[in-house]
């Protein structure tokens, strides 16, 4: 047995060596992009810290060729540099090209307070703040008194709040503070949780303070470090020896978990949140093949085998509460499957939970393309779950932009596999997210109406569209930031503003931020459009207009433009200037200004400027939309 294990290890080691050779060849022949790809493969084959460090070092020598940059800074009271290679690996896996800044060891305060520090010169988009409890409050290593603990708790709260406040005043970065962990054993032994000076409850309280303070700020998060370390196994995830040797605290295993969890903040910041999960049925949502064993023969119920599928379905249902859509794609006869979806006693997911359903014998890639079109979201927002490796390989090859999950053979691992994905995170949950599934249901009804209407005009009138347009206020900011960062198709400039910038625009007298809410006879669409306008001396410059894909094709964007036009006229502006920056995805927006009577006036650095004279030209609201305007 052991010998066999050694053979297997040896085989894997050979593969790693071979991959290293491949890398060296590619590097030597100057094929930089392929060399990067070879490093990606190398760190998958050998997930050790040594190899991650090697890859990270090599990339600096190769020079970067990738797209989608992200700037990540780390401030810490202990040595956290070894996290960087692991984060590098995770970022590449997500298609990002990261740049890192690690502040000098234990100089986080100076870095934050000094406007000309390396941190601010670097210009981070996200800052991780990792402070160790023992560094903040060394008394915790002896037996601190009740008074010591009360003072320590207040001090820590003040220190962290101060750091976040000062950081936020000087940077627009998202701030992610690590929870504080108490890693030693309590000096009180088993009596710890019965005493007023017990350390476990005190640690809970300290973290509770931080959660409360940070939770009140849209730009700051508390990373649940205790949960992350728990995953690595606390004993094996922390090492006092590493601390003695190098002022480090975490082992490779813990750093790998930490890097993976950190991506839950990086991905939504970079607009990489996946929006739709497409699931197979036989072998994925239940055990067995329904076409062969019938609805009563499938494995699905409260005892094993079957409970693992119920558990998995519940995890999928939980995702819909965050606004993630579900869709079915299964090779089956609808007559075999629909009774299960509609009537099986133990199905957690029902027909109404799926935004789209494809049960047929066609190629799954074709089905996925069709679902993307029906739901009007990009395939790069899709996750594909199928127990059949052949189907997975097909999707990987035909639709590489879809995230195809390597579903384990053992169905009891389905739920944890899904829950470990860092691709479904949102920086804020909005009303629109919670209602999304029902909105897509209403969409299906709309489409049915469209098919039965005689003309497009009849159809649009019959929808009874209501649009409400207002100046943005503070409570709109989370949804605005979310839309700015994930809207690709109807987006005139694709400028990915973050919370601090939007807060500034909303408060600034030189800017106007408009929000558009839309409803029709089938229900509310919610906040689905926005515009950012900058007032200049004699012109009003439209910095950005965007529209959720859910309401494209209804001409509600005209309502936004009309509102800006009215305001510009009222203030006697000589020119209304609309900027347009073409991207690979915003083709549907290309003629936006032209079809509203704007003229192309010029182009600077890839940004087109379209102009219109509000004193002469006219913009009208569409006849089929009832517009309500609030505020000036």
């Amino acid at each position, binding site marked *: 047995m052991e010998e066999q294990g050694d053979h297997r290890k040896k085989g894997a*080691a050979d593969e*790693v060596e071979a991959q290293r050779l491949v890398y060296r060849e590619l590097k030597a022949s100057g094929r930089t992009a392929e060399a990067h790809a070879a490093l990606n493969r190398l760190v998958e084959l050998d997930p*050790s810290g*040594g190899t991650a460090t*090697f890859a990270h070092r090599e990339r600096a020598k190769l020079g970067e060729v990738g797209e989608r940059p992200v700037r990540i800074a780390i401030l810490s009271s202990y040595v956290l540099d*070894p996290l960087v290679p692991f984060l590098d690996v995770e970022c590449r896996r997500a298609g990002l090209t990261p740049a890192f800044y690690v502040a000098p060891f234990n100089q986080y305060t100076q870095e934050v307070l000094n406007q000309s520090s390396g941190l601010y010169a670097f210009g981070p988009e996200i800052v991780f703040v990792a402070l160790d409890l023992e560094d903040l409050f060394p008394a915790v290593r002896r037996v601190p008194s009740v008074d010591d603990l009360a003072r320590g708790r207040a001090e820590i709260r003040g220190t962290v709040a101060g750091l976040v406040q000062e950081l936020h005043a000087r940077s627009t970065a998202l701030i992610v503070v690590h929870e504080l962990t108490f890693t030693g054993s309590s000096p009180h032994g088993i009596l710890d949780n019965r005493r007023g000076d017990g350390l476990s409850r005190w640690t809970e309280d300290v973290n509770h303070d931080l959660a409360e303070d940070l939770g009140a700020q849209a730009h700051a998060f508390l990373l649940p470090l205790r949960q992350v370390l728990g995953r690595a196994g606390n004993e094996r995830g922390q090492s006092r020896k590493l601390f003695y*040797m*190098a002022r480090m605290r975490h*082992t490779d295993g813990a750093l790998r978990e930490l890097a993976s969890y950190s991506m839950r903040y990086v991905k939504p910041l970079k607009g990489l949140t996946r929006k739709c999960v497409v699931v197979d049925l036989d072998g994925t949502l239940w055990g067995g093949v329904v076409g062969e064993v019938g609805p009563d023969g499938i494995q699905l119920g409260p005892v094993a085998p079957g409970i693992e599928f119920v558990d998995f379905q519940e995890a999928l249902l939980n995702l819909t509460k965050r606004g993630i859509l579900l869709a079915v794609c299964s090779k089956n006869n609808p007559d075999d499957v629909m009774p299960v979806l509609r009537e099986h006693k133990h199905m957690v997911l029902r027909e109404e939970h799926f935004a789209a359903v494809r049960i047929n014998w066609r190629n799954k890639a074709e089905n996925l393309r069709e679902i993307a079109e029906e739901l009007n979201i990009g395939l790069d927002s899709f996750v594909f779950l199928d127990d059949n490796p052949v189907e997975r390989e097909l999707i990987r090859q035909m639709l590489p932009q879809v995230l195809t999950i390597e579903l384990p053979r053992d169905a009891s691992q389905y739920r944890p596999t899904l829950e470990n994905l860092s691709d479904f995170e949102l920086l804020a949950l909005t009303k629109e997210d919670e209602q999304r599934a029902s909105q897509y249901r209403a969409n299906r009804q709309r489409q049915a109406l469209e098919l039965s209407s005689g003309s497009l005009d009849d159809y649009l009138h019959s929808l009874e569209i209501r649009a409400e347009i207002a100046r943005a206020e503070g409570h709109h900011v989370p949804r605005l930031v979310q839309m700015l960062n994930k809207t690709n198709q109807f987006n005139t400039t694709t400028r990915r503003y973050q919370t601090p910038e939007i807060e500034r625009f909303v408060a600034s007298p030189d800017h106007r931020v408009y929000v558009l809410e839309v409803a029709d006879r089938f229900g509310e669409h919610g906040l689905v459009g926005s515009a950012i306008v900058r007032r200049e001396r004699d012109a009003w410059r439209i910095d950005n207009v965007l529209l959720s894909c859910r309401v494209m094709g209804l001409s509600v964007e005209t309502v936004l433009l009309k509102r800006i036009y009215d305001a510009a006229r009222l203030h006697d502006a000589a020119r209304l200037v609309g900027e347009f920056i073409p991207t690979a995805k915003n083709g549907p927006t290309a003629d936006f200004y032209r079809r509203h009577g704007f003229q192309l006036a010029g182009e600077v650095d890839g940004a087109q400027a379209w102009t219109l004279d509000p004193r002469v030209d006219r913009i009208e609201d569409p006849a089929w939309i009832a517009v309500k305007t609030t505020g000036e």
Partner: protein
Amino acid sequence: MRTLEEVVSRVFGVEPQSLDESSSPESVEGWDSMGHVNLVTALEQHFNVSIDIDDVMEMGSVGKIREILVAYGVRA
């Protein structure tokens, strides 16, 4: 069982043939203080030993590491 050279070469991404007993932080790219921690972690895992901090500080070359590992009863 891999040899000491193989472990060192794997941690720093250099070819095993390029290493000899005198190879040290001065001659191997990546063998800085952080690399040394990675190396110690890899040695502990691979040879299933726990190395004292004194010894960690003494591991200044491949030859020296071999000497120390032998003292731990490892055939390196």
